[in-house]
């Protein structure tokens, strides 16, 4: 009888830990931190030995020994969308699970609630993108007119990406659409005579697409000995840069082809 209960416990623990890891990775947590958090949660359960967690940006494995059986589960991690407040809430949740303030059933329903939650204010990230792009363009030394145009191009880009998200496109197509739309918007404003420095306006607006975080993460993973994650993040950064280059490059070639 006890072995059946143990098996159910193990299944629930597997379910909760893999889902926690998957959600952490999907909302943009670092790989090593996701591994660490999942490991802590799994170790805090009773009768569990030999906990091993293996995570990369693309998948997560959790494996442990409970009773006299081994249990393993794997989840795929789909394209990440950064959501820092959800990362914070998942972190709080894992802390409560580790200290035993929460049963596994409660944890599972809380995880599902976080996953299903709709965005409360969909315009706020766009406003943030506008402010961020404008401030960044000003830091680069652009004039006020260029800055406003970079902000407008950034808003066009975020709106296009929002529409693209509805069709569940991959990150490559998403970035391509974003870079084409923002540089086309900058080009139109340049032709209308609103922009003096075309390049700075584009840099400011596509700053939101730049794989700076992937590059940094990949170097950081590789330097701490996590080579698979480092390679994956590095390839992602390279592919993102390629998508931006294709998008912006197409618009630049069109601009050279069409007389003013």
């Amino acid at each position: 009888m006890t072995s059946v209960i143990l098996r159910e416990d193990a299944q629930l623990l597997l379910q909760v830990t893999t889902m926690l890891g998957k959600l952490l990775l999907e909302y943009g947590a670092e790989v090593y931190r996701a591994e660490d958090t999942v490991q802590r949660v799994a170790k805090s359960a009773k009768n569990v030995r030999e906990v091993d967690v293996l995570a990369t940006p693309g998948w997560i494995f959790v494996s442990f020994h409970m009773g006299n059986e081994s249990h393993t589960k794997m989840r795929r991690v789909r394209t990440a969308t950064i959501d820092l407040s959800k990362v914070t809430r998942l972190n709080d949740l894992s802390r409560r699970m580790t200290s035993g303030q929460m049963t596994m059933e409660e944890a599972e329903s809380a995880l599902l609630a976080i996953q299903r939650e709709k965005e409360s204010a969909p315009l706020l990230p766009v406003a943030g993108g506008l402010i961020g792009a404008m401030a960044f363009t000003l830091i680069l030394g652009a004039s006020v007119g260029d800055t406003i145009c970079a902000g407008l191009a950034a808003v066009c880009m975020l709106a296009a990406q929002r529409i693209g998200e509805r069709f569940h496109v991959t990150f490559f197509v998403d970035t391509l659409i974003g870079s084409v739309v923002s540089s086309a918007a900058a080009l139109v404003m340049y032709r209308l005579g609103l922009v003096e420095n075309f390049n700075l306006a584009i840099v400011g607006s596509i700053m939101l697409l730049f794989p700076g975080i992937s590059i940094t993460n990949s170097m950081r993973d590789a330097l701490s000995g996590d080579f698979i994650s480092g390679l994956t993040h590095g390839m992602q950064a390279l592919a993102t840069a390629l998508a931006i280059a294709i998008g912006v490059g197409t618009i630049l070639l069109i601009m050279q082809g069409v007389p003013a």
Partner: protein
Amino acid sequence: MSFYQIGLVLLSFVATAGFALNFKLWNKKHLLVASISGAAGYAAYLFFSTIFDTQAMPTLFGALVVGLLGEWFSRRIKAPALIIILPGIIPLVPGRSLYATMLHFVQEDFWMATDQAVQTLFVAGGIALGILLASLFSVSLRRMRRLNVIGRKERKQP
């Protein structure tokens, strides 16, 4: 520090806050802390760029400041350091040289493109190394405290 540089630091504060919002960080305290770290990192970058001639070294020190502040604040507000570091390094990201790389590749000017690409990689490496050093520092500090080498006397049970 000139007025121009103070203006740049203020702008980096605003830029960090904007990007943090774009990364869906709603909590006001977290936003404030992240923006302060971003601005401090950019200030360090500006200061060290008067000392070093290269791009990568000042970026390393800027990222180190962001990382140390991130680890310190994250302990105080009980949130992962990521939510501070991710927006905080945005003002240091080599956006212009990455764009120049792509531009030169599109124009088939491969010498300049490679030049800019290496530059971008070095600056990105500087950011990564700065953050890595900060997190290594905080981890080893915690370990030393736990083993009672320095600091607090009471021992925490894990």
